[in-house]
């Protein structure tokens, strides 16, 4: 039986949207995704509401949140939000929402870990990075949670750099012309104090979780909806002990920071895709000229300096 809950009441038929260049047909409304305007192909990704088993048959329970079955299906679940079942080919996600979960909450994890599994299954490389357009190319800024990716994305956006992605930057390594960033959706997740520092009120913004002081900021105008070649990969650093500005890291350091650059890197091990993902990451580092590092800008002067350095990053 298909669960029906208020958060998930769909209108006429499934939503027809686009995410990272994929055509997404979804029973769950996905208001932050742009409508699909491409060809008449069948859905690349089908999102259904339905039952998700508590335990995958012969499922390997890796921890309470993730199970992977021998046939490649993957289950992600959070009790207060719902359970998600991702097919082994990454073409279908079934969602069983928890009774009181909001649509915002369900989509938060759908666009996070769940979509990362879809990417791994489809041979796409998800980076833990925000991404902006500089000239006719893309630059991704990677880093751990809380290092300031969303603040950087929103600040550069207010300074006129179109946004491609906030927290997860999906890279397609399969094209002939080198890595391309596939645009995500025009939203940035920010805590209240970060929003207020940007001069934005939280009034009217949807909360990421009902009980968290963290919100979705729409960035409709100034969103780059077309894929762009990735020209630079920069890791954000919080420590004030590193020099200001952008610097190129030695190759060994770049490789050593894999866990801070890839999104959900241990999913590679869980899903058995590490050989492919590692090879993609090495090619990516090669094609962007290595990993760079940037001390998180804090003052207006430091933001100006970053802006001045961006043209050199895209070369």
């Amino acid at each position, binding site marked *: 039986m298909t669960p029906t809950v208020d958060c998930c009441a769909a209108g006429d038929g499934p939503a027809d949207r686009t995410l990272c260049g994929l055509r997404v047909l979804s029973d769950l409304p996905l208001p932050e995704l742009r409508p699909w305007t491409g060809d008449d192909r069948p859905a690349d990704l089908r999102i259904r509401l339905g039952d998700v088993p508590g335990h995958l048959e012969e499922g390997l329970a*890796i*921890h*309470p*949140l*993730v199970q992977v079955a021998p046939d490649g299906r993957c289950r*992600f679940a*959070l009790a*207060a939000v719902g359970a998600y079942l991702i097919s082994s080919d990454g073409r279908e996600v079934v969602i069983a929402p928890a009774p009181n979960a909001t649509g915002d909450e369900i989509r*938060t*994890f759908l666009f*996070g*870990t769940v979509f*990362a599994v879809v990417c791994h299954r489809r041979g796409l490389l998800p980076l833990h990075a925000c991404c902006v357009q500089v000239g006719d190319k893309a630059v991704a800024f990677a880093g*751990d*949670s*809380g290092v300031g990716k969303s603040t950087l994305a929103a600040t550069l956006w207010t300074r006129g750099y179109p946004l491609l992605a906030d*927290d997860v930057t999906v890279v397609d390594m399969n094209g002939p012309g080198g890595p391309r960033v596939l645009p995500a959706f025009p939203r940035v*997740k920010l*805590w*209240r*104090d970060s929003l207020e520092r940007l001069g934005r009120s939280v009034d009217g913004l949807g909360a*990421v*979780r009902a*009980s*968290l*002081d*963290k919100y979705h900021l729409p960035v409709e105008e100034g969103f780059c909806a077309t894929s762009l070649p990735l020209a630079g990969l920069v890791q954000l650093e919080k*420590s*004030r*002990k590193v020099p200001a500005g952008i610097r190129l890291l030695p190759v060994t350091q770049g490789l050593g920071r894999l*866990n801070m650059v890839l999104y*959900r*890197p*241990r*999913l590679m091990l*869980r899903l058995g895709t590490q050989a492919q993902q590692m090879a993609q990451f090495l090619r990516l580092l090669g094609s962007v000229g290595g990993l760079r590092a940037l001390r998180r800008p804090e003052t207006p002067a430091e933001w100006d300096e970053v802006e001045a350095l961006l043209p050199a990053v895209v070369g």
Partner: protein
Amino acid sequence: MGGFYWIASYPKSGNTWMRLMLASLIEGGAPPDFTKTMGFASAAGAVTDMDLFLDVESSDLTPVEQAELRHDLAVVTAAAATGPQFRKVHDWWGLTPAGRPLFPPQVTLGSVYLVRDPRDVAVSWAHHSGLSLDDSIAFLARPGAVVATAGRWKDQFEQRLDSWSGHVASWLAADPAPLLVPYERLSADPAGVLAQVAAHCAITASDAAIMNAVTVTRFDRLRREEETHGFELGQRRGRVFFRRGLAGGWRDTLSAAQADRIVQDHGPMMARLGYI
């Protein structure tokens, strides 16, 4: 399969000093390098560990979900490790909201619990946190006290300390029982105590390495390093981390009434530990 040695204490009880000693000891007595972020024995409540090992954006989790998953984080991290891991802990030895141990015995190789006279803790905590002495004393007495309060992003999860007495009581009853290290003994006999801690944590160390580790982590030396390079570990902005490092320094700072209040608040536990 790895497991954990928890280096646990109420804040301002010598935890960082002990970790600097152990970090030096493991490197054969090498001096601490304050130009780099301290790499040894990171915090047990670190947010980035949960993102990495539980495949989730932990900053999208509620404080209750985070607290619950800390048990699983310990189990999964231990399973992924090939050797013993050291972690700094300020939480009390308590349970998750669903009643599972925060520090699961099955992945605990051992614990070291540092304890310090609460009169010295109150003075040091006031300096570290920016509270007045009276507010600091009240904080030490507060049942259910927490640090790294949830509500916005932090690099550590909310940690329940409980009152100072409650914190000590929880760790003295921990499973498995910890090695109890009074700050005052560490201060008086650092080499002897370090040797004992090393043995408890299965660290093989020569007498020379222990002497070196003690020498390079002497308090005056840490203070000089901090003056030169800085040392940021959660203290109020602009304040030094390594302040005095004295046992009994409270005598020239607390009023008689303030000292008496601490004894009233924590008398039974202070007596049990020989502080009164």
